């Protein structure tokens, strides 16, 4: 089945540094999404990308949908302690039937971000 390779697996950075993480796959996706999970909570959607080449920002976060449709990148600028958590990428495969909605969404294994002040 389709797989997403998310890297790095973990990052340890100083407050104020910029962060970059990415997701790659051998499969083509129609949508890329980035979620963040705070410790002890469920993931929350940060950014959704719907077109190849699309660059979208949400505050200090910027994400891009790769031109090949096989990858996506997330950058965090000027990190702060509350950026700590697990960041998941997710890719959505095109599908026609409601019954396919669940298996059409593939998650990466996450990047754990630690920020020291």
């Amino acid at each position, binding site marked *: 089945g389709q797989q997403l390779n998310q890297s790095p697996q973990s990052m340890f950075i100083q407050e104020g540094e910029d962060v970059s993480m990415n997701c790659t796959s051998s499969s083509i996706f129609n949508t890329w999404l980035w*979620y963040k999970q705070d410790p*002890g909570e*469920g993931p929350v*959607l940060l950014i959704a990308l719907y077109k190849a080449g699309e660059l979208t920002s949400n505050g200090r976060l910027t994400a891009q949908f790769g031109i090949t449709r096989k990858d996506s990148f997330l950058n965090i600028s000027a990190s702060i302690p509350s950026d700590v958590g697990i960041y998941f990428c997710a890719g959505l495969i095109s599908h026609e039937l*409601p019954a396919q*909605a669940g298996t059409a969404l593939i998650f990466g294994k996450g990047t754990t971000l630690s920020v020291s002040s």
Partner: protein
Amino acid sequence: DAGITQSPRHKVTETGTPVTLRCHQTENHRYMYWYRQDPGHGLRLIHYSYGVKDTDKGEVSDGYSVSRSKTEDFLLTLESATSSQTSVYFCAISEFRGNGELFFGEGSRLTVL
């Protein structure tokens, strides 16, 4: 916040006992999902529902069953819990088919001894 509640939030049980986790939503969303999260594996789909009484299997469905008798409730049942089912379980809901935008619950931590 999306109105999604999971219960129980924490449960410890013994091998071989049945366990049911409940997901309740107040958003009237059509799609509901159960994921499990384990270190090194990320989020893995167990089962999902695309309507009342319409469910299908995900990546790791063995040992689990689900039921959805009304829009707001999606139940996950472990008929006979095993230690390998110790995990954190997340319910998620989605309004639109196929846009990948999920709202997650806060999770249910299950420990099987």
